């Protein structure tokens, strides 16, 4: 089971410089937080989907659609109930509250999708390299990539431990909230200890590969700005400018 998001493909988005993609990601976050109305946020979502399609990254949506959907449902339901508005629809739900919830749903989902596209089209080594070129210290940039590296390991351990305890008869689905929480102790202890052991192993393996031996490290990957990066950044800036204009004039 592959738990990494990166999809190794040749696409125009893959071949962009990681710094370009970092800027585009930040730009999409800015555009998303500018608005509360569903209309412009929906337009942003469409732009992101086109970007994702160009990067051939949308198949990863299948892996997180449940998350996206639950965020949308929770957001729409809670805002519909709790936000006040002038136009009642039924019970406490108002049209304005519904629209606000819908907007918030698209906003959060868009930001997640933007992050997903970034991780699907950029190798962690490229992200590290891009961050270094943006003057982030190497140790900090590498810590970020190590965090991404550890997620699948921990999930893998969690799956195995859960299977092992279930095979001993542990039933996680029944009982009250407190009882259920207590049932997780047999899971958490082995997962925690295994992760500790793993981290210790990882540290030894990193050292033996010369990690941190020199101040200056070289890079096997090459990154650099090309014409496509200029075009992508210009287009991104233009779209962001349009969103800003809509926000502050309309």
């Amino acid at each position, binding site marked *: 089971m592959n738990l990494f998001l990166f999809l190794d493909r040749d696409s125009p988005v893959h071949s962009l410089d990681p710094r370009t993609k970092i800027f585009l990601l930040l730009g999409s976050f800015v555009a998303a937080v500018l608005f509360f109305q569903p209309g412009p946020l929906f337009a942003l979502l469409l732009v992101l989907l086109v970007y994702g399609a160009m990067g051939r990254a949308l198949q990863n949506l299948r892996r997180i659609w449940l998350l996206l959907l639950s965020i949308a449902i929770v957001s729409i339901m809670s805002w519909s109930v709790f936000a006040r508005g002038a136009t009642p629809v039924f019970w406490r739900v108002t049209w304005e509250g519904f629209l606000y919830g819908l907007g918030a749903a698209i906003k959060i989902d868009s930001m997640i999708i933007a992050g997903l596209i970034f991780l699907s089209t950029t190798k962690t080594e490229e992200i590290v390299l891009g961050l270094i070129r943006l003057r982030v210290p190497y140790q900090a940039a590498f810590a970020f990539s190590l965090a991404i*590296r550890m997620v699948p390991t921990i999930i893998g351990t969690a799956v195995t431990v859960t299977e*092992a305890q279930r*095979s001993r008869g542990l039933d996680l689905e029944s009982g009250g909230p407190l009882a259920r929480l207590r049932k997780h102790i047999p899971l958490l202890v082995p997962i925690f200890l295994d992760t500790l052991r793993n981290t210790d192993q990882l540290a030894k393996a990193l050292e033996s590969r010369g990690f941190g031996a020199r101040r200056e490290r070289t890079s096997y990957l090459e990154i650099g700005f090309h014409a496509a990066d200029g075009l992508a950044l210009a287009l991104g800036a233009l779209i962001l400018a349009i969103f800003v204009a809509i926000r502050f004039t309309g």
Partner: protein
Amino acid sequence: MPVIRLNEVSFRYRGANEPALSEITCHIRAGELVGLLGRSGSGRSTLASTLNGTIPHLVRGDLRGQVHIGGQDIRAQRPRDLADRVGFVFQDFEAQLFSTNVALEVAFGPENLGVPREEISRRVDRYLRLVRLEALRRKASAGLSGGQKQRLALASVMALEPQVLVLDEPTSDLDPAGRADLWDAVRDLRRERALTLVIIDPETDEMGWVDRFIVLDRGRIALSGTPSELRRATGTLEGLGVKGFTLARLASAIGLQEEWQDADQAATAIRTAGWRVKEDAAETMRRADAERANGEVLLEVEDLTHRYPDGTEALSGVSCAIRRGEFVAILGQNGSGKTTLVKHLNGILRPTAGDIRLSGQSLRGQPLTRLSRLVGLVFQNPDHQIFAERIRDEVAFGPRLQGLAEGEVARRVDEALEAVDLAGAGDLDPFVLTKGSRQRVAVASTLATKPEVIILDEPTTGLDHRELEGMMALIQRLNQAGHTILIITHAMAVAAAYARRGILMRNGRIVRDGTAREIFSDESSLLELGLTPPPAVQVANRLGVPALTLDELVASLTRAPLAPCPPAPRSHS
């Protein structure tokens, strides 16, 4: 001048009472290939960890004496500063891989050392070619097999071009084909460039190609010598808890003073010396086998298919029946579907298609708890399940979940601990135990739920020779006491010696299912699946007798009555 010099090296882990190493003095020449043997806890891994400075820099404790690598004291240098001189490959291949794909993994070390880009690129090509992974350079390491991962770890360490390479049990988690490929890659590397090698591997039989063995016992060097010298000292070796050379044991069992390199040579020499197989040998073995008839069918797997959520089909139309009292070994390479199959038998996984019948009753649409009551599954790594602070509570976990009264729980815990030879240890913290004993705790935890069928996934991985024999004797006792046993194992000697039936799997299918004798006497089918029969079985096959262990083989041999007994010829090698 030796490249590795240890002078009176002692080490005590922080908090430990006994030293892990005591006054070790040894020199290793440049280009030498040294095999490090010893039971678990003998100090093998501790010694290896001093060679790249992991001890004292990353492990706390008290180091005395001098460790010099290439003339420099390791105290002055951290492992990362030694990385271009001493390479280290660990047992756990998952923890050694950090990168998005294969090529970047190899590049990671040289990048850290500031090697120019063109040179990195040259090294990536070179070492991927040497470990035969060049075709996979863009592949994510998560998608590689265990054997490929370990070869990738080897290439990424070699890309630092060290003079010394330390391999700490690199094959323990690999299947037989993965092991063979890794050793081939190591030999190829050694042909390409001068390399001093220190290898820890418990499979003595597969280590005959080293220049010298060093055997540790309780932190001291107990024995050292060339493979020939150690073959002659096989008895001493076993006294130190290390697996002896099978062929050397065979030779001495029939009174031949010879040294054999492989099964062909052994078989020829045995014939030349006038030994032959007793005429009724095969018949006697089969009769003994037949005496142990099995009971009725307990579990039936019919046309079982399993597809994981990501679409991979791990099992495709598997059918088999398990009878009461059987002892079955499920064999096959990593990824052939063995573990997925047994997870169905215990109800952890539900079939995508097909059916499992319990005493003739279909489980389709039934809760799987009925299955988990009948079938206990002991996972490969005991540390994935041990959580309690006392062994007694750990073992009581299953029975308590079944809702048994505390009196009954206590009785079962005592019984289970008794069965695994841990009676009286109930109040200890499981984490003070060795890996072998933690494995026993896991078995006891399963036993305490009184399952009729016990499945063990790789029960001997990471155990030393003595612990392995103890574990297998325990499993055999359980079988004799009436439990039906299924084991998944890569250890062919274990499968041959203990199982009575073998199921061979490949690519999610059962490709052969028969008695252990049938399976192991058909050597070509095994080899086709990347499985090598153990040395004793190989010799037996060449002599034409279906013996499964060294003892059976020796018992089936007799001196030809007519031929005069020639003096045993001296070995030419």
